């Protein structure tokens, strides 16, 4: 992958357009980033993307911004991170600046509401699509523990509304113990 102007422009425009379409915040942008950078551009590997998501999730600040920083840094160091941060922040900055002028009209507009309702259904479909792909990857490996962790974490987050920080911590600890018990011989692999 050549780090020329074309690459940086592509990085900027990709991140910018992703940010411009991240309605609903937080976790919505992650599936979109995965689709763009993993499946479409093949710049980042699947597992690495999940790791970066975990870091973005457990760091302070907006997940969208954190994930963008990580992707930028991974692809082109500090300059890359700078580009992706600016590209992520710019759409909300521009849109909110415009809206702040006549925001009551925007808030009460029927047309705007209809478009957004439609997009909400679209966003839900995108997330479900990505989740199906991701869950398939995990089930395909045919290890019991990751599947149990996935189902358990889902129930914890969805049914019991456990704070995501605790879920991340608990799953990290489970993962750490799983290697210590199972295969000490795995050291040095990869």
């Amino acid at each position, binding site marked *: 992958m050549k780090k020329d102007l074309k690459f940086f422009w592509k990085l900027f425009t990709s991140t910018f357009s992703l940010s411009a379409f991240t309605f609903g915040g937080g976790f919505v942008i992650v599936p979109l980033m995965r689709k763009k950078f993993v499946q479409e551009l093949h710049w980042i590997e699947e597992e690495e993307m999940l790791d970066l998501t975990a870091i973005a999730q457990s760091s302070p600040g907006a997940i969208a911004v954190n994930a963008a920083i990580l992707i930028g840094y991974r692809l082109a160091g500090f300059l890359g991170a700078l580009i992706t941060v600016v590209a992520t922040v710019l759409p909300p900055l521009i849109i909110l600046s415009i809206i702040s002028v006549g925001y009551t009209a925007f808030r009460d507009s029927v047309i705007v509401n209809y478009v957004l309702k*439609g997009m909400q259904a679209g966003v839900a479909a995108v997330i479900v699509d990505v989740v199906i792909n991701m869950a398939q990857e995990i089930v395909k490996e045919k290890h019991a523990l990751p599947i149990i962790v996935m189902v358990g974490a889902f129930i914890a987050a969805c049914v019991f509304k456990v704070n995501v920080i605790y879920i991340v911590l608990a799953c990290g600890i489970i993962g750490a113990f799983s290697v210590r018990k199972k295969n000490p011989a795995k050291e040095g692999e990869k």
Partner: protein
Amino acid sequence: MIYLQLFWSFFQVGLFSIGGGYAAMPIIQNQVVTQHGWLSMTEFADVITISQMTPGPISINSATFVGIRIAGIWGAVIATVGCVLPSCIIVLTLAFIYYKYRNLTLAQGILGGLRPAVVAMIASAGLAILVLAFWEGKPVSVNPQDLDWISIVLFSICLFVLRKWKSDPIIVMSGAGFVGLCAYYFLGR
């Protein structure tokens, strides 16, 4: 110095909102409404509503909104920079550690535990949006009158298109927005 105050306020918002999305809300409220009185509670509620209707994280949206009202466009820029800076510092540090140590067995184990958890949390967030889209924020019930059928049909078509042709999500979402406008406008609700 208003710029410095804005910067410092939103620096704290960026630093203490862990868990993303709505986790930031009470912290922003504390800084912007309670401590500085930059917005009234009603205005703050409007910012949250607008945030849900527009792209971008709530923290960045409120930084822009508050900044521009208090000190114009530069206020918006400075508040946003303040909001993003803690993320930059902490995330870059973690990224550095991750790339340095990710091949260690222990790190492999931790990451192996986190990957399925991330999938689960994305699924959980997706479900929340699905419920919001289908029931419009009303309590979940099986009564067909409570369901937003346009949304359900739109969702099904989008999912089918995505699975079948692996289409670009941004095109699918824009299409859903346009079809949604037409459907709600002409068919009512």
